[in-house]
């Protein structure tokens, strides 16, 4: 085989894997459950991100005339009145609208988990996995050993240690910075710093799984003929990694991201449940679940638990089901 043919063969292989991905996506689109999941995720995510425009009330607005009110709907004041006067999900002890608070809580969860997944899971995890898998030997050993140290901490124990001990100091530091530079004004108030700390905590243990997975894929792929061919052909490392290896590892990455997002959402809720997440007065799903989970509250005001509970459940469920569907479609072995 001449050089030309080899190059063509390599490209064909890559093309084929892209075609494979496209076909998989087509199959996914035919799966009703996957479509439902994607649509609900889109709805939940936009509801959260655009909470400021959608929410009928201010999340701190207190109204003492409607304290602990069950869900209620105002039907006699037109569409505008229906939206701004109703309490779709009831109110809490300070007369705050729960629907509004859940929307804002979703916003926190959504932003945090996306940031954590993008930085920790995808950027750090994938690149370390690629590097480890491609270079092998010492590099691989080093990265994987570090991963093992992080992974060996009992579950979210490390997250809690980080969030509990470092958060107050980072906040102080951020405030000082903000006071010095006018430009940064309001960062702490809108919770950016909280986001930052919580995502660091999430990232801390989130990258390992992804790195392992990618590394395994790469280890397998780089032994295949066409990569060897590409290398023999003088393709640069960067080109091999980005053009050939990464596209072929996409499928398992997508599955992992989807299932991992469910886990991230769960962890974020646990952190805020513990008081280590986004701080009041900004609402978060975890603190709302904490308040609503009291047995006496369930007895008298079940909507206090059900409203944030259902939101959290739907969010996790949609990711899990989507992950399952993707797994079916992309992973030929278990089909």
């Amino acid at each position, binding site marked *: 085989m001449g050089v030309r043919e080899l190059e063509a063969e390599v490209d064909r292989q890559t093309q084929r894997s892209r075609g494979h991905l496209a076909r998989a996506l087509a199959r996914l689109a035919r799966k009703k459950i996957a479509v439902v999941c994607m649509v609900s995720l889109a709805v939940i995510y936009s509801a959260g991100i655009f909470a400021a425009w959608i929410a009928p009330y201010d999340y701190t607005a207190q109204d003492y005339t409607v304290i602990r009110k069950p869900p209620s709907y105002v039907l006699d004041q037109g569409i505008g009145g229906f939206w701004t006067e109703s309490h779709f999900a009831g109110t809490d002890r*300070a007369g705050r609208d729960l629907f509004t608070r859940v929307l804002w809580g979703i916003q926190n969860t959504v932003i945090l988990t996306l940031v954590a997944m993008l930085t920790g899971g995808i950027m750090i995890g994938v690149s370390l996995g690629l590097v480890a898998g491609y270079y092998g030997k010492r590099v691989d050993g080093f990265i994987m050993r570090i991963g093992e140290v992080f992974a060996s901490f009992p579950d979210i124990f490390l997250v809690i240690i980080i969030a509990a001990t470092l958060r107050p100091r980072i906040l102080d530091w951020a405030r000082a910075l903000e006071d010095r530079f006018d430009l940064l004004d309001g960062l702490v108030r809108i919770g950016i710093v909280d986001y930052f700390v919580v995502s660091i905590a999430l990232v801390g243990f989130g990258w390992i799984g992804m790195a392992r997975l990618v590394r395994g894929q790469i280890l397998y792929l780089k032994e295949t003929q066409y990569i060897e061919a590409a290398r023999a052909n003088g393709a640069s490392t960067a080109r091999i990694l980005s053009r050939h290896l990464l596209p072929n590892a996409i499928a398992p990455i997508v599955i992992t991201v989807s299932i991992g997002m469910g886990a991230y959402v769960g962890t974020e809720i646990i952190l805020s449940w513990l008081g280590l997440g986004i701080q*009041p*007065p900004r609402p978060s799903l975890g603190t709302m679940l904490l308040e609503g989970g009291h047995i006496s509250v369930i007895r008298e005001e079940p909507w206090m638990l059900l409203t944030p509970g259902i939101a959290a459940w739907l969010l996790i469920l949609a990711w899990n089901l989507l992950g399952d569907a993707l797994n079916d479609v992309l992973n030929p072995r278990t089909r």
Partner: protein
Amino acid sequence: MKKLVITLITLMTLAAIACGGTSQSADEEPTQTPPSASMAAPADPGATAEPEQAQTPGQPGTAATPIVALEQQPSELTEPLPTGTFRRLWSDPPTLDPHLTGDTTSAGVVVEVFSGLVALDTDLKLVPDIAESWTIEDGTVYTFKLRPDAQFHNGKPVTAEDFKWSLERAAAPETASPVADTYLNDIIGAQEYIDGKASEISGIKVIDAHTLQITTDAAKAYFLAKLTYPTAYVLDREVVEGGGRSWWIDNPIGTGPFKLSEYRIAERIVLERNEEYYREPAGVETVVMNLAGGQAMAMYENDEIEITGVGLYDLERVLDPNEPLNKEVKVSPPGFSVSYIGFNAGMAPFDDTKFRQALNHAIDKELIATEVLSELVQPAYSILPPGFPGYTNEIDGLRHDPERARQLLSESKYADPETRPRIVITVPGTGGTIGLDLEVVLEMWKQELGVEVEIQQVEWATYLEDLDEKKFQAYAGIGWEADYPDPQDFLDILFHSESSINHGDFRNAEIDAVLEEARTEPDIVRRIDLYHQAEQMIVDEAPWVPMWFTGDRYTLVKSYVEGYEMTPMIVPKLKRITIEG
């Protein structure tokens, strides 16, 4: 010894599913009442409200008059002792070694199993315990006569030698007791011994097997009351030395009305009546303390425990006269405590009195108390709690007055929101919520004054450190609780500019002068008058927003339980309980 308590209303009542951190602070500071908390801090608000210091409203003898035990000797056992089991929720005590005890969770168990020279009655009067009588010379030399019949649970008689050894063990540096200095350092030579500079406490002398002499460095009215604390309890030397640091787990030998018959960490403590007790034996055969926790209210209604506190969420239901539960409600005596939002007068913008006053006037506490907290608390407009010595209802507090608040704000240095420094309030805790009352207050400031305040929650360990270092600009979620009934314990300790517990760095020379004058004023009426004066000045200067007097607390006790008394402090009291039927 001062008492700082977490009084986050939510932690008290809402944080049912308190996390580990909350339980930590609950144990640390049992004054917060998580009656319905699943983490099972002591479920009895009476008991949980107990200040750790044993300085009491009793009248410790200062004259050299002998105080003789009036109590009867154990009644002749003509009829069998009553049976019955008393079950309650408790949290896992950090220790049951009396000499290491420094928290109410531990003390609540320790005082039932161990005992010392003197004790507190349920009405907080000082009564003889192992010492049947004593004399006091010059106010400093205490000579105790021990009961000849007092014995350890293993049958060994208690001697004066045991007491000397025990007190020295409590004070020994290697014991590392957190409270030895507090409770024992009035004894001559004790501080040197605690610091490891002496081989014995010179102020403790064994006269004979049943006579013990303790000399204090000065006439101290409260000395006897201090001896009621577990730090001064007697232990069996052989048992302790033979068992290492954890002797009390393997072989908990004490002298008290109950024997510790079972201790399973974080599961349960079972106390069994000590039939050989030197005073009247207990009225119940066993006491089971459930340490594993659960939802207290549900457990009570399921007949799993005999007593529980009532939290915010159950209050309305329990107070409804049509509810069967309503007949079992007991109202505990009000605790001597006040919760507040503290301002750091040393930091902008709280260095401006007008700004502080404006924030005070902007809050409608009546509304919060009735609408949000279901009247679980009483709004505070002064510092001293009602019923407390020196309390007067004539203090003119900074009441809700939005007009005045806005005016004060506009007159203050920080009227302009553009140049006003950022404001951060720090609250302790890890329970997830910051306290509903505080959230409402923030909203009121925003609505009435346009003052935006950031809030940050810091877990208890960090909070304590930063509070001591006066690093907070403003702080909330804590309260102050009386150790002993004297206005000095509130006003001087909290607001004198030299006090180490003046966390808000509040300085006012005039107020200092009044407080200092009151310290030494011998005339009681005039002294109280000085404190009134000081309190009014403090309230006017607004270093705090006083929030709540915790007011009456509600407890449910099963109707078949007799003799359970609510006390605002930890005292031995389980022996008085009887179970009917």
